[in-house]
């Protein structure tokens, strides 16, 4: 299932404003890649460009190449809607659909697309997704209850279950723990470790310890000043990035000297 992603000379614009400049990176299947960097450095923008979510904002566009297993995601004839089915996303704040029950939330990806699926198969899929998100034991007795009634950490795992229920190849996570308490954060981090066996995961985080804990590869984004585009400064194995980075800026950042 897991796929690789290749970005080549990727520029991302909002209107005429160049937000991210000239990013080239390879993301291997079944790895966890962490994107770190100071606020406004374009790491979230880059993440959103990877499943064409940034197009939701009017005027946003990209130049360059972004490939999923060799297919150009921005090529002519590619439908952003199908891209997003292959590349799922989990957001900063848990956002379960308030009108739906826990069960319906997990089933949402298929239901909203009116995919025909037998009730029994759907039950299996929901259970499997919830189990994969380490949530099944906690919610199996109240699947019909609204998702909004759970704790923040549970809601976030529900969102992960919802994302993996559509069986994507890649899972993008945009600071998935920044709104959660330490215990819920730990639960999510454990989950990420398990999920990487099946998915390629890219996670944006502000928390360097988290990047060090969960990721195999880390990319450091930086920005030279306000109004300047964000750039990928350095990308390497996480261990190396945190012990002996090549760039001075990386070292300053991971050692907490700025950002």
């Amino acid at each position, binding site marked *: 299932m897991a796929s690789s992603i290749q970005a080549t000379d990727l520029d991302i614009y909002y209107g005429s404003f160049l937000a991210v400049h000239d990013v080239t990176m390879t993301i291997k299947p079944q790895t966890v890649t962490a994107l770190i960097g100071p606020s406004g450095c374009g790491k979230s923008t880059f993440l959103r460009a990877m499943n064409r979510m940034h197009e939701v904002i009017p005027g946003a566009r990209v130049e360059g190449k972004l490939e999923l297993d060799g297919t150009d995601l921005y090529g002519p004839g590619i439908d952003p809607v199908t891209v997003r*089915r292959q590349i799922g996303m989990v957001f900063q704040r848990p956002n379960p659909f308030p009108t739906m029950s826990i069960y319906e939330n997990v089933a*949402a*990806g298929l239901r909203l697309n009116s995919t025909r699926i037998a009730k029994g198969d759907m039950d299996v899929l929901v259970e499997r997704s919830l189990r994969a998100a380490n949530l099944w034991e906690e919610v199996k007795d109240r699947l019909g209850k609204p998702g909004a009634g759970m704790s923040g950490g549970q809601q976030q795992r529900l969102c992960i279950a919802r994302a993996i229920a559509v069986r994507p190849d890649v899972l993008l996570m945009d600071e998935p723990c920044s709104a959660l308490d330490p215990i819920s954060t730990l639960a999510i981090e454990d989950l990420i470790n398990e999920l990487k066996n099946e998915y390629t995961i890219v996670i944006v985080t502000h928390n360097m310890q988290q990047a060090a804990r969960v990721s195999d590869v880390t990319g450091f984004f930086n920005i030279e000043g306000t109004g300047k585009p964000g750039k990928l400064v350095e990308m390497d194995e996480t261990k190396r990035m945190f012990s002996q980075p090549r760039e001075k800026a990386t070292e300053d950042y991971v050692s907490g000297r700025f950002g």
Partner: protein
Amino acid sequence: MTTTAPRSAERAVDTPLTTVPRVGGVLPRWGTWAVLAAAAALVGGLLALVGFSISLFILATALLFGVAVYLWSRVIEGRRRAKDRLVTITVTGAFLLALAPLVSVVVTVLLKGLERFDPMFFTYSMSGILGPGGGAYHAIMGTLIITGLAAVMSIPIGLLAAIYLVEYGRGRLARAITFFVDVMTGIPSIVAGLFAVALFALFVGPGARLGIMGAIALSVLMVPVVVRATEEMLKIVPNELREASYALGVSKWRTIVKVVLPTAVAGIAAGITLAIARVIGETAPLLITVGLTTAVNLNPFAGRMATLPVFSYYSYASPGIPREAFVDRAWTAALVLIIIVLGLNLIARLIARVFAPKTR
């Protein structure tokens, strides 16, 4: 207390205004109520001598109460507190005064309307009725049909236009629509009626009176209300839900139909109910587009129809003989109308509360 001595400029800056917290007198808790009771008793007593009038009693009591509290407080608590008390009394009095018409309207309509609030009123038309008896069955049906038609025309337009403004609209077209919806909100109802008249004068010929004309006039009034209400509700749907849906690979229109609208549905339904309540009592546009009949006409595409507000108006404004029979029917029609309108308002409240997205 220490600052009463004349101060030089430096002293005014250097010395604190008061070295000890000011402990002045304070009116007792029961003070204002006691004054109110005393004022009422005094005014009541005086009026009893010259002839009692409820409105004069309330007015004089309120005035006396305000003045008395102000003076008492001024003596004991000082000018600033006294002024504060006076304003509190004024503002509270203004609120009670504003509620008076509402209470008076409801009581009046109830008292006068109950006279003919009988089964006959709901089952008979005025066909062949010259004096007492008869009913407003034809008018009730007419009101329901015409308002229903208006709703059927305006709800889809209003909903879709609001969806356009919130979900798609950018640039000049959206700005133009927003602006002209504002303009439309301000159209006087009689002008909406004239529009329907002018429209049908061109296509059907002058002097036409049809139910559908009334429905079109009401639509002109209803569309902007539906747009505004829906817009408000769609705007408060968090963007995160749209993004969550997009990220699941759901297309935009399905996201709108299956995520955004269900999240906002309670508010939208409440808004639409209020919009219906607003137009169901409209009289002026129906007066000039639909007219009135005495018999039942359920076909909005052929001839005049009766509607409750117009029925009520004509029964009161140009009664037959005996006058009381007509006036009673006018009030009962008003009562039915007010029950419908207030009922719709209540339903809107309930919808908004009961069907709001649950969190538990």
